């Protein structure tokens, strides 16, 4: 599948030209890749230097001290750990619920033919493509009005509670996950159901024992993708979570910037700290992340 034929012989131009063109391309890609890394490298470099050094020598300079003090300061002053924990309270339940609900819906939509199958799938997918701001105004009022028991929300309503934030993530991202999973399940052989029916397996057992285990690859891919997306959410928590201390890290950065991150060295350290979980995803779970992204565009 990845066997890319060599470009040699594809063109009518002589071999020499081809070689030079390849070198040119190589150089172009190398430069582009380097340019792409500059912002992160620059942030890292800035973060390693004490503010006094950069103030004295300028930001574009070498020499002086290099250490991780900015990280320690950014971490402790802003109580960053708290915001990471907040993020986990939201992200982990949300991802699990999304996969659970979306796989159920996808199973029903892909393995059985209802009259409204297509319409429902379209509603799910379209909902996920809407800009979040389209629904925020009424949603904000709904969140203020809808009651929740005390143990789910100290505020007594959806607004300003983890439960509320989890709910909107689940409702919103479910569309994409359902779309991806139903495409995948559709491609599984139909005989699986038929055989199970003959054996007298209930619909639930077909879902849980037969289809779901076969759906592991896209579930893993979606889990990674959803984790990243929800971790990266800025908007929902900004609007629907008023207590600053309860905000997840991505939304909290807005307040930390200027209050605790008072110079670029600290901004750099704080930003990179906040980026660590997703950079770990990039490094370790890259395959799943890319698979998740592309599952939605290429039919699984």
């Amino acid at each position: 599948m990845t066997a890319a034929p060599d470009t040699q012989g594809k063109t009518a131009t002589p071999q020499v030209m081809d070689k030079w063109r390849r070198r040119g391309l190589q150089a172009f890609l190398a430069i582009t890749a380097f340019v792409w890394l500059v912002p992160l490298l620059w942030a890292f470099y800035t973060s390693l230097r004490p503010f006094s050094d950069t103030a004295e020598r300028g930001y574009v300079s070498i020499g002086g001290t290099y250490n991780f003090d900015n990280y320690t300061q950014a971490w402790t002053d802003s109580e960053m750990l708290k915001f990471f924990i907040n993020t986990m309270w939201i992200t982990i339940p949300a991802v699990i619920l999304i996969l659970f609900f979306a796989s159920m819906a996808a199973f029903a939509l892909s393995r059985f033919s209802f009259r409204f199958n297509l319409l429902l799938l379209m509603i799910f997918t379209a909902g996920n493509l809407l800009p979040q701001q389209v629904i925020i105004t009424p949603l904000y009022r709904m969140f203020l009005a809808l009651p929740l028991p005390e143990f789910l929300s100290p505020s007594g309503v959806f607004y300003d509670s983890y439960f509320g934030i989890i709910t909107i993530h689940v409702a919103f991202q479910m569309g994409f996950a359902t779309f991806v999973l139903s495409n995948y399940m559709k491609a599984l052989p139909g005989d699986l159901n038929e055989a199970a029916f003959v054996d007298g397996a209930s619909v639930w057992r077909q879902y849980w024992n037969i289809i779901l285990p076969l759906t592991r690859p896209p579930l893993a891919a979606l889990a990674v993708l959803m984790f990243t997306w929800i971790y990266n959410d800025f908007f929902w928590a900004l609007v629907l979570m008023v207590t600053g201390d309860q905000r997840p890290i991505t939304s909290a950065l807005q307040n930390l910037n200027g209050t605790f991150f008072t110079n670029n060295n600290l901004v750099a350290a704080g930003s990179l700290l906040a980026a660590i979980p997703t950079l770990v995803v990039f490094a370790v779970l890259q395959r799943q992340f890319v698979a998740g992204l592309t599952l939605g565009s290429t039919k699984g």
Partner: protein
Amino acid sequence: MSTRSEVEVAVARERTKRKRFRLLTNRDLGVLVFMLGLPALIHVFFVWVPALLSILLSFSRWDGIGGVEAIEWIGLTNYEQVATIYPPFWPAVVHNLIWLGFFILIATPFGMFLAVQLDKEMKGSKFYQNALYVPVVLSLALVGFIWQLIYSPEQGLINNVLGRTDPENLIDWLGNPSINLWMILIAASWRHVGYIMILYLAGLKSVDPALKEAAAIDGATSRQTFFHVVFPVLKPINIVILVITIIESLRAFDIVYVTNKGTNGLELLSVAVTNNIIGEASRIGFGSALAVILLIVSLGIIIPYLWRTFRADEVAA
């Protein structure tokens, strides 16, 4: 596809449908309704109900105080005011259009171009690919912070390299309303290009190599092969990429909000909506009218796209 075969497909499908449902017991049917119903209910209640309420509330005046009975119905007044006396509206429309134009004409084609080059699998391809794709895992809010380190007037990379950090000659990249949108677009493209590259590369890998070989045997150059063979074959992916580009342009919010809360040259429709709920004055009807404008534009893209995708599926099934 001819009408005749479409009919045949429909008939065949109808037959299997009947067969399947005969096999279901009442209990199984109940379980299925639950499995589909609960997710559908959550999704519709928290996404589509607010979307429809946006439309309804856009014809009203309500500051959110005094409950639902305090809502005053005022017809199209909100829309009239949005278009005539709301200062950020037209700048926001223009900025969203510039955003869209920049992405469609520059960032997205560049991402596709890089994917095509990386697909040639030269030495180091994997490394280049990774470098381009790192920003994709970062949030746009974080992208905003990281680029602050480059743009900021006194402590930023560019001004320090240019030696323009003195108050009298510094360039305020993010503060000057005639350039800041473009600077933000560059920062946003840093992420967008990688995103498009990854998607398109996956598409390119799915193209049957035999097609390219056949074109090469016929004497096509690699450029001809791409434009006449690969690009047309990738039509579904091309459409996905176009839709993603448009939607991302409409959604743009985080990066301008962390930069200056979407003011002073960075007004966007998404920010305008948000400011009418979390700003000092909560103007629900007015904010809804802005949201409806965004909704109509979005659905104008989303519905034809989904219609096309799912209909093609149906026929192919």
